[in-house]
């Protein structure tokens, strides 16, 4: 079965991202497909490549990246809401350039896109599961 997941909360402050990760891992282990994970609201903070937790703590960002959720074209299907990301200072290379800012912080396993991607995930998937407040 095709699943998509929506995450509305950032890492380390709410259990949502951890719960969603465990859910995604279990779904993959059961032979299901994760079509897309959509990071919305504070959930966009799950995509920061500058996240450096202590060595004895889990790295939530890398955990997501290591799941390697991609589409047939090899593009990441860990999708970060663009409006939620920009207002929280989360920029990829092209958005940084567009806004005249040096540096970018979106992990390469994630990509920035619009809310339409969440709607599409809802349409294309058999199930959409929401984590967070």
């Amino acid at each position, binding site marked *: *079965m095709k*699943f998509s997941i929506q995450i509305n909360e950032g890492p380390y402050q709410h*259990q*949502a991202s951890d*719960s969603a990760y*465990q*859910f995604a*891992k*279990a*779904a993959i*282990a*059961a032979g*299901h497909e994760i079509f897309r994970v959509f990071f919305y609201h504070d959930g966009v903070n799950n995509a920061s490549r500058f996240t450096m937790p202590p060595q004895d703590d889990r790295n939530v960002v890398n955990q997501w990246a290591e799941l390697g959720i991609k589409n047939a074209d090899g593009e990441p299907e860990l999708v970060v809401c663009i409006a939620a990301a920009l207002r929280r200072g989360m920029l990829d290379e092209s958005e940084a350039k567009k806004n005249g800012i040096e540096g970018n912080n979106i992990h390469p396993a994630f990509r920035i896109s619009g809310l339409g991607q969440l709607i599409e995930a809802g349409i294309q998937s058999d*199930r*959409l*599961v*929401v*984590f*967070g*407040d």
Partner: protein
Amino acid sequence: MLHTVNKSSFERNSLQSCLNIIDDTSVILLIEDGVISAANNANSPMLADLATQGRVYALQGDVDARGISSKVADNIKLVDYAGFVDLVVEHGTAVSWV
């Protein structure tokens, strides 16, 4: 339909809101702080009634993490994440109460 509830009923009234509208075929899965409502001394009569019908589940890992394993009401079923996935597959649309 599968309803997930992720807040304790001591913190929010999302569980009660869910119980007020749930239909005869849907089930509830308590996750995160929602598992607090699975404790035998926190049970609402409405949740207890659903539990006797075998329609209430709680996520084992979240129950254990909160130290209430020995207090979970008898007829609330414990599931792991694989069981969570199965519930989503079986019951169709998943609604998240927060």
